[in-house]
């Protein structure tokens, strides 16, 4: 393959792509960009047929690789360094720095005598945060952008073998990659002597076995080596001793998908987007109580308010915004006062949350923050690898306390123990999973302590979520007597004459919430204390947790 050949393919493919009716492509989750969005990573998703390499080339694919191979590896690293690209997997470590460390480690040791690769490049596609699917969209919709990014990164850092670690739950992504890799090999874009530059690089796919913790780079390396995925203490960092003891760079899908664009359009173009320390764009998966859910890509530095209200279309059902949960299960819940905080690595960390891989869950007044913390802790406890006691036992004790609180069994001592646990798990756990596991609890406790106290002191869930900890009352002064609640009630326990305030027969109410959801006049209020029936039901469903 030469640049001229690539140009010829592009010219032909461009015409073919323009002539083709793209509406026949299977519909993905990705909607057309909304005002305020800037698509760099997602630019091809939905615009090309991901199973055809020609489509990718038609949109300037592999031209960045041709350009990069005309530069020295140091120049490539420098270009990416000047762009300010930081790791999109969550930690935000400068990508160029990672490659430089690996490159230095390769130079510091003798070339392998057995002909094995001197270093490895791993693409981390083990996207495990619940509700996050940014990487899946890229792997499914534009697999070649990741392969091209990997090849450029490998050239920069000195690897000749790459692994694409994809979770088994992404069969379409795996399928598209399995088609993309042979296509690239056939055109000489992977394999020996790429673009005649004397650079060899090939990629194999490794499929994960369903462990969230394998997204942690050292656990991921263990998993590729065929062992149980468990984080190892660092140092040694993978850049020095990673896969099979060789210098290894582990980069996230989104990070690598950015690389071809940076090479092609230049560091200045990329650095013009974003904030001082967080450059470029970031994809987010918006979920929860917001009108427009799904994937978006926005410039770094945009505020949460812009994402939720301008792009997301605001809160559903005219409810009140309560908090945004960013960064996945290891992130935090940020209340209203942070709505105008710019979204970048530093600002989110300063607020006690994380950029993470880009999950953003919007919570409204009917979300119980204690229950939200319990939900995330349930996830983390289940996904803890079990290696260090602070995580394997600590998250279990946190989950038990949070579960007690949401069942009206919390005590004031529990609150103290909760704080003791969070402080110490964060400083003693082995890896980012354990250390970050406390973030949902720490942030909800910081910003919504009154809710915790209501659960403990009054056995009351003000958001109306925790079973057996509240009941509904119709406010006579607000009720118009429209009768909708009466018709909706599955138990037939709401009484009232037309156009006169209605009333709930409390002892027989099961607190299902249908009336609350149906009322258009906000005339139904959540009040402390269970009804007789809801208390009995809450006790009946009691099952051991954890």
């Amino acid at each position, binding site marked *: 393959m030469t640049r001229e050949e690539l140009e010829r393919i592009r010219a032909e493919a461009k015409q073919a792509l323009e002539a083709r009716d793209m509406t026949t492509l299977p519909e993905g989750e990705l909607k057309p960009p909304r005002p305020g969005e800037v698509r760099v990573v997602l630019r091809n998703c939905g615009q090309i047929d991901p199973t055809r390499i020609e489509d990718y080339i038609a949109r300037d694919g592999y031209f960045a690789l041709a350009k990069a191979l005309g530069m020295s590896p140091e120049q490539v690293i420098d270009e990416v360094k000047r762009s300010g690209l930081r790791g999109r997997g969550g930690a935000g470590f400068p990508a160029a720095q990672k490659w430089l460390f690996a490159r230095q480690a390769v130079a510091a040791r003798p070339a392998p005598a057995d002909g094995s690769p001197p270093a490895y490049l791993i693409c981390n596609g083990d996207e495990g945060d619940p509700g996050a699917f940014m990487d899946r969209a890229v792997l499914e919709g534009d697999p070649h952008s990741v392969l091209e990014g990997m090849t450029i990164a490998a050239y920069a850092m000195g690897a000749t073998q790459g692994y694409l670690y994809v979770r088994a739950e992404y069969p379409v992504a795996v399928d598209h990659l399995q088609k993309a890799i042979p296509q690239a090999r056939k055109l000489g874009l992977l394999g020996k002597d790429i673009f005649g530059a004397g650079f060899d690089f090939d990629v194999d796919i490794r499929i994960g076995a369903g462990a969230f913790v394998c997204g942690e780079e050292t656990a991921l390396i263990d998993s590729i080596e065929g062992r149980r995925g468990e984080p190892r203490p660092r140092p040694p960092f993978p850049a020095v001793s990673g896969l099979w003891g060789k210098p290894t760079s582990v980069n996230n899908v989104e990070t690598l998908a950015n690389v071809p664009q940076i090479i092609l359009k230049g560091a200045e173009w990329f650095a013009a987007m974003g904030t001082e320390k967080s450059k470029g764009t970031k994809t987010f998966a918006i979920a929860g109580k917001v009108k427009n859910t799904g994937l978006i890509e926005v410039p770094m530095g945009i505020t949460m308010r812009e994402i939720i209200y301008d792009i997301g279309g605001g809160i559903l059902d005219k409810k009140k915004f309560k908090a945004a949960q960013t960064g996945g299960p290891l992130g935090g819940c940020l209340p209203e006062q942070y709505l105008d905080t710019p979204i970048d690595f530093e600002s989110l960390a300063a607020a006690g949350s994380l950029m993470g891989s880009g999950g953003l869950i919007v919570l409204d007044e009917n979300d119980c923050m204690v229950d939200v913390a319990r939900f995330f802790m349930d996830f983390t406890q289940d*996904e803890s*690898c*079990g290696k*260090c006691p602070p995580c394997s036992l600590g*998250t279990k*004790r946190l989950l038990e306390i949070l579960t007690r609180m949401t069942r009206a069994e919390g005590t004031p001592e529990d609150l103290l123990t909760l704080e003791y646990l969070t402080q*110490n798990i964060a*400083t003693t756990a082995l890896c980012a999973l354990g250390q970050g596991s406390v973030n949902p609890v720490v942030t909800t406790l910081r910003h919504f302590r009154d809710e915790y106290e209501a659960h403990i002191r009054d056995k009351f869930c003000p958001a109306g979520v925790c079973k057996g900890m509240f009941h509904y009352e119709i406010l006579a002064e607000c009720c118009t007597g429209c009768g909708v609640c009466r018709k909706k009630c599955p138990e037939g326990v709401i009484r009232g004459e037309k156009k006169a305030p209605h009333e709930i027969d409390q002892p027989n109410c099961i607190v299902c919430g249908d009336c609350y959801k149906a009322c258009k006049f906000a005339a139904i209020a959540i009040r402390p204390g269970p009804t007789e029936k809801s208390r009995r039901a809450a006790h009946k469903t009691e099952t051991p947790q954890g």
Partner: protein
Amino acid sequence: MAQLTINGKKIQTPGGTILAVAREHGIRIPTLCHHPALGPKGACRLCLVEVKGSRVLQPACTFPVSEGMEVQTDTPKIRTARKFVLELLLSDHPQDCMTCEMCGACELQDLMYEYGVKETPFRGERHAYPADDRDPFILRDMEKCIRCRRCIRACDELQSVNAISMINRGFRAKVATSFDTPLQESNCVFCGQCISVCPTGALTEIDSRGAGRTWQTQKVTTTCPYCGVGCNFDLHVRDGKVVKVTSRWDSPVNRGVLCVKGRFGWQFLHSPDRLTVPLMKAELWKKRTGTDGTPSPYAGFVEADWEAALDAVSDGLAAAKAQAGPDAVAVLASAKCTNEENYLIQKLARREIGTNNVDHCARL
């Protein structure tokens, strides 16, 4: 050479982990998952230390020293962290030290004592695995397991058997064989290395149950009689009886490693069937002494003394040599003898008897 300070003390070292360097210089750092015979793991979080410039506490057992490093090993922050980890461990550990086999030799108990952890502030679920004695040698009381993985590493690094590994995740993580089968259905060879490295009472010898705690037995270092390797170990003796065998990590021969026979096959010592005096065929005894001799439990044999028995052997060998020449005699040595004993026996054959007919049971 790197220069660093640990607790303000200037130290020059060619390198290594913080733990190794600290120990070399007499600075104690508590550990639980660390074992001198095994590779570092960094799992238990007991050896956490403060490294200046590091955001979080770092495990001394894996963290390499570097030039100019400043380490603190015993600050209030560190003590709080260690105590916290111990409290968590205690919240999932039966508090039955009263009846525990390892009481007094338990590293977890020692650390609880050192850090004053009398009880745990955490209430919640505790593992309740039934004690597993489905195999003949190793009692696995998994509710006492603290998941330090020393046993897994011993099985892998010392024995290369890999019969056990972790299964499940999080709180449910457990050391087990594949599919959690009994040990004898796995590729376990019952070397018992796992017992020798277990810091708690999770792994103990079935045959030594209730036979005596560590301070109640006298330890006698000896050489294994089973084969010519000559492994060293400690016999635990109580009231004149052997009750247990434990590894000697300082043995240059086997560096603590034993096989199933050495570790578990000591019961023959006190067997009533064991020969303690030489026996001689009754008619031979009568022919040589003219008496009936002391009857033995074995039909046709009487009890002899060593003098008489060796005389009979010597006379027999001499007679055979005189009658049919030295090559009529062959000497078969035993793998249970030491190298030195085997050397002597071939010398007896070649010099005293005059034959090269020397062989050894290990060749059969």
